[in-house]
């Protein structure tokens, strides 16, 4: 199947070309864009069940490596590549400091991850992707923080991949094979006999996945990394790369099906239950930390991993509705997160800073971006009829159907909190007073506008016709041996407790809006006034020599909440990792003292070592 190989080779070729012509920024971006398009074209040719295998004479074993298309992988492939097309299209004109060849390398790796049938190539691709992203992050803002961020990410992800490596070899030494399918079915077969054992191996993998997706307690790298990554890379990082972890979880979650008959918690096997809690806690922690952020990229970084928490909580249930909801939310997250980050990138590229409290009022200058952002956060908040609603709605139903009310309340709290921080970002960036220093800010270029219009359209379209996504998801659910949810048309979302016709909701909302605007039109006329013309008890701000910046309330927007949130902020996972790093460093500096530079010490060491060996020799003599 040459198309499968093309999915790997096209990006690699593109990457090489992009690396060569790096100096010519436009050409590089064009290459990047066209590579994504070509990859997408090849993808169209691919159907579920396509496979390609080759065997590698490696280490005296004959290792079968292969690529295969499952419903899940084709879903993931479409998601990532199509999003990449959009992103690179947007990037054609925007100043985003992205290294195209790294992005394309990441694409190749991600395609490989989704198609791999054996752990060997899975790990290879995983590493490749990780490293390409690390390097991409190094190319971001050239500051000490950026370096720190990338290092932090690198450490976490190296730790994760070593953990996965251990898992892979523990497993392959048991089965003598690297094939994912064989290994998983082996695990299924011993699941009931040695559950702890299986759990040990699987958690080795899970650590890697959790790191990649930023699941609590491995979320600490996320803000550093997103905050300091090149602007253009962040949308890809947050929308696409965080999904690899989810894909990884889905490899192993079928294991829990065999535990269904074992007593668990609330009808759930306890591994699932634990993962649900990890997901919920992640969602809450992300939201709460996002609350106090002033850096826009960091804020949405937190938002991003909060949403990953939602997804994990849903898929961890591994019921038809949970799985559907999780995957659906994964898709929606891709869309709205993409919309949000693309607008954020657009704003940053025009304004040049990332501190939200120094922005404001930009809706006057960038109306379309403002609208896109609005639709994006509406979707993120789960407001019907936009795309995010259906999945959140299903997640809640999936959770409650198992009686996981605590976790559900946590998720709902996360959802509300997300509404709050989204509003705050919305306000701080786009609303309020426009500073005079942004008088010359312009709306983004035509290509950017096209992207944004497309995103708005997609967010609304998939909000109204979720069936277009739910259909493939149903086949994924079927491929895991679960009974898919009933489908009754493209406009329906069928939950556990109820189903919703999105079209009728959409029509109701539209009609209501028409009515609203009619009312607006027939009621008395208004006159437009400049932004400074505000109610200030009889005076105008100019009388007090106020500038728009001073007349903007956006710093410490939720200051009264500080006290309530403080307990959450005290959970310093970050500090734990830092402290760990510090103690390693301390250990290093003490060990270094062995090498004093004195030749006698070295001689002592050598002779002493020898003497110890001799004594050891006597003891066993």
């Amino acid at each position, binding site marked *: 199947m040459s198309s499968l190989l093309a999915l790997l080779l096209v990006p690699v070729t593109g990457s090489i070309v992009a690396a060569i012509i790096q100096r010519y920024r436009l050409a590089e971006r064009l290459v990047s864009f066209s590579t994504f398009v070509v990859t997408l074209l090849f993808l169209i040719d691919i159907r579920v069940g396509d496979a390609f295998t080759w065997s590698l004479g490696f280490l005296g074993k004959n290792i079968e490596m292969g690529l295969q298309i499952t419903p899940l992988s084709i879903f993931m492939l479409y998601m990532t590549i199509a999003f990449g097309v959009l992103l690179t299209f947007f990037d054609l004109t925007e100043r985003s400091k992205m290294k195209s060849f790294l992005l394309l390398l990441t694409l190749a790796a991600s395609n490989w991850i989704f198609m791999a049938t054996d752990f060997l190539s899975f790990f290879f691709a995983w590493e490749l992707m990780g490293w390409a992203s690390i390097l991409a992050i190094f190319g971001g803002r050239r500051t000490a923080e950026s370096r720190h961020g990338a290092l932090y990410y690198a450490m976490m992800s190296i730790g994760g991949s070593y953990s996965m490596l251990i898992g892979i070899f523990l497993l392959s030494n048991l089965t003598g094979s690297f094939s994912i399918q064989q290994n998983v079915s082996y695990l299924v077969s011993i699941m009931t006999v040695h559950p702890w054992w299986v759990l040990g191996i699987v958690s080795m993998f899970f650590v890697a996945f959790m790191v990649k997706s930023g699941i609590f307690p491995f979320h600490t790298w996320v803000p550093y990394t997103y905050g300091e990554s090149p602007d253009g890379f962040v949308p890809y990082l947050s929308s696409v790369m965080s999904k690899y972890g989810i894909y990884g979880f889905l490899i192993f979650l079928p294991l829990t099906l065999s535990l269904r008959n074992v007593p668990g918690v*609330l009808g759930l096997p306890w591994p699932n239950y634990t993962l649900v809690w990890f997901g919920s806690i992640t969602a809450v922690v992300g939201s709460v930390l996002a609350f106090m952020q002033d850096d826009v990229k960091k804020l949405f970084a937190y938002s991003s991993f909060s949403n990953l928490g939602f997804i994990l909580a849903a898929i961890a249930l591994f019921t038809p509705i949970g799985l559907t909801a999780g995957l659906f939310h994964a898709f929606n997250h891709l869309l709205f997160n993409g919309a949000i980050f693309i607008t954020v990138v657009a704003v940053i590229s025009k304004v040049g800073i990332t501190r939200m409290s120094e922005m404001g009022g930009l809706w006057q200058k960038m109306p379309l971006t403002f609208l896109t952002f609005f639709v994006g956060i509406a979707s993120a908040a789960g407001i019907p009829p936009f795309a995010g609603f259906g999945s959140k709605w299903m997640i809640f139903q999936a959770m409650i159907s198992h009686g996981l009310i605590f976790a559900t*309340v946590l998720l709902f709290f996360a959802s*509300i909190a997300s509404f709050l921080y989204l509003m705050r970002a919305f306000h701080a960036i786009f*609303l309020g007073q426009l500073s005079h220093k942004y008088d010359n800010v312009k709306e983004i270029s035509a290509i950017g506008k096209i992207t944004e219009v497309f995103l708005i359209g997609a967010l609304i379209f998939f909000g109204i016709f979720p069936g277009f996504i739910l259909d493939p998801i149903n086949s994924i659910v079927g491929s895991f041996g679960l009974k898919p949810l009933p489908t009754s048309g493209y406009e329906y979302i069928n939950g556990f407790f109820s189903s919703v016709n999105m079209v009728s909701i959409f029509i109701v909302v539209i009609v209501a809006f028409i009515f609203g605007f009619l009312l607006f039109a027939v009621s008395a006329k208004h006159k437009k006034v400049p932004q400074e013309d505000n109610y200030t008890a009889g005076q105008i701000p100019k009388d007090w020599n106020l500038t728009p910046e001073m007349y903007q309330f956006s710093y410490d927007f939720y200051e009264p909440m500080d006290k309530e949130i403080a307990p959450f902020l005290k959970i310093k996972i970050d500090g734990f990792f830092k402290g760990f790093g510090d103690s390693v460093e301390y250990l290093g500096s003490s060990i270094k003292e062995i090498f004093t530079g004195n030749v006698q010490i070295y001689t002592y060491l050598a002779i002493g070592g020898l003497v110890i060996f001799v004594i050891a020799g006597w003891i066993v003599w």
Partner: protein
Amino acid sequence: MVIVEFLIKLSQGFGIGALALATGLLFGGIARKIMARIQRRYGPPFTQNFMDLFKLLSKGSVSHGWAFDLGLVAGFVPMLAALMFLPIGPFTLFPSDSSLIMIVYLMMMAYLGMAMGVLASGNPNSAIGMSRALMLMAGYEVPFAAVIFSIYFFSKTGYLTQIVAMQSGGFMNWNIVKMPLGFLAVEIVLQGMLGEKPFDQAIAPAEIASGPMVELGGKYLGFGMIQHSVALFLETGIIVDLFLGGAPNFWIFIAKQFVLYFVVVLVDAILPRLRVHEATSFFWKLPLFLGILQAVIVIIQGGVLNV
């Protein structure tokens, strides 16, 4: 046929909207009267709110741009849209879509629109007010969600219509009897939702100058009033449907709503205002505790669903 059906639904929807608005305004007027009487004043007439609305809509006003306009329109429109899915007495416009969470999220869209309009005015005082309103919302939505989810789990359905149907057949079938703690929690939450004391930090008349509405005038304030009135109807209506067994006809429905609202007004009359973070943390304590307790009871009662 489709067009005829659409027109019928349209007119019905219009009717529901008008009815809800009227009821909401009337409740508001009655509340002002009750308040006045408690304070030993005569108070404005019941119809004062209708007159106010008409006056506001016909007065000229100041706009801060299209985002301001759009936001304020979007502030009350979703409330009206949400009404269409609410079982009002025996009648529901779209019974097959009356999902509770959907209604909750539609209401949230109204807050989003309101916030957008208010913040687009560029007045820092309105921003301060909005931040208070949002924080308050973070407070009361959580216990509310806990109760909603208990009901979901308890009723095994998410349709308001079906929840109402399950409560038919007498007082003892009402959820208020089956889940008293949940009802108590929701009653407290309602206080916050409607912005009555002790949770009126954002929209208290005394705080107008530092509240969200500082820049609103004329029709914009009118839109705000519409939003508040419809929300009053909607929120009390939801609770009636959830706990008080709905109603066989429209009048009883309104009566039940009024009972709920009456309690709210009475509480409002006797309690002072809290500081905003105190309010939020209060919601995260007592009502949430009640809601969670209710949820635990429900789970223990109902066992678990095996899927």
